[in-house]
């Protein structure tokens, strides 16, 4: 069975304060298939912070991204958004929203 290519991933990550998000973003940007990355901090604690990591590219590897985050002392708490396929499909607003 073949899988389509991942184009966007939004991860909720708990990470130590060091390495900081500048360092982490630059490391993620070097991963194969990554076109761009955005990291936003939404909560800071004494030793750790919660970050929303958005990664976009033509051919993302979730395993590589997860390994890099773990290697830098972080943990993926949840995958909040994923886009895969020939083009990136945005979330559609429905009546329920």
């Amino acid at each position, binding site marked *: 069975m073949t899988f389509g290519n991942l184009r966007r991933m939004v991860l909720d990550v*708990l*990470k*130590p304060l*060091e*390495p*900081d998000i500048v*360092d982490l973003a630059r490391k993620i940007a070097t991963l194969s298939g990554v076109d761009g990355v955005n990291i936003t901090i939404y909560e800071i*604690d*004494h*030793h*750790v912070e919660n970050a929303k990591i958005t990664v976009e590219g033509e051919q993302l590897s979730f395993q*590589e991204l997860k*390994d*890099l985050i*773990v*290697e*830098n*002392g*972080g*943990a993926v708490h949840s995958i909040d958004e994923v886009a895969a396929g020939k083009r990136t499909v945005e979330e559609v607003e429905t009546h329920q929203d």
Partner: protein
Amino acid sequence: MKKNRVWWLSIPEFLAEIQSYNQIVGITEIARRYFVMNAFDGILTTIGVLAGNYLAGVRDLSIPIRIGIATSIAMGISGLWGAYLTETAERQRELSELEKVSLIDQRETSIGRASRFAVIIVSIVDGLAPALAALIVLTPLFLDSVIQNPVLSYALAGGTALVSLFVLGLFLGKISEANLIGFGMKTLMAGIVAIAINFLLGAE
């Protein structure tokens, strides 16, 4: 995926890894602190060795040289061991705290490796600083065959110690971006006080 051990990396990758470790743990700051503290210890201890030998009437300089070298080795070992044990405990505590709040085993992450690397670097700096400082102060004694005057060699060694203390003070002043001469005078005063007390107590 990136390799996990620094000794498997190429030189640019190794340097980048070291830079990253430095950013995580702040190795430069810790090592700098240890360097100044222990070089200061090394110089003052050697002042003690020199003053003791001079006041005891020792004019055969091979004796203070041997005592000085033995003392510098002991200070080096003391620094190495002391820093290794202290820093290991300190790093371990910080890592455990981080593990508690992150619920992640941090030992094999870049943070765990940075901690272990910091322990090694800081131990080496802590071991070398007092030993090297002591050997620098002893230099005029090594040159006795040229100077050919033991009392002058003692005086030059004392002068070297005071200059070294002043330079150490300048270094501290540069770090603090404050008054360089002020810091230099403070460290210099420590040497003068040590020499003065030794001479007051040793005067017959």
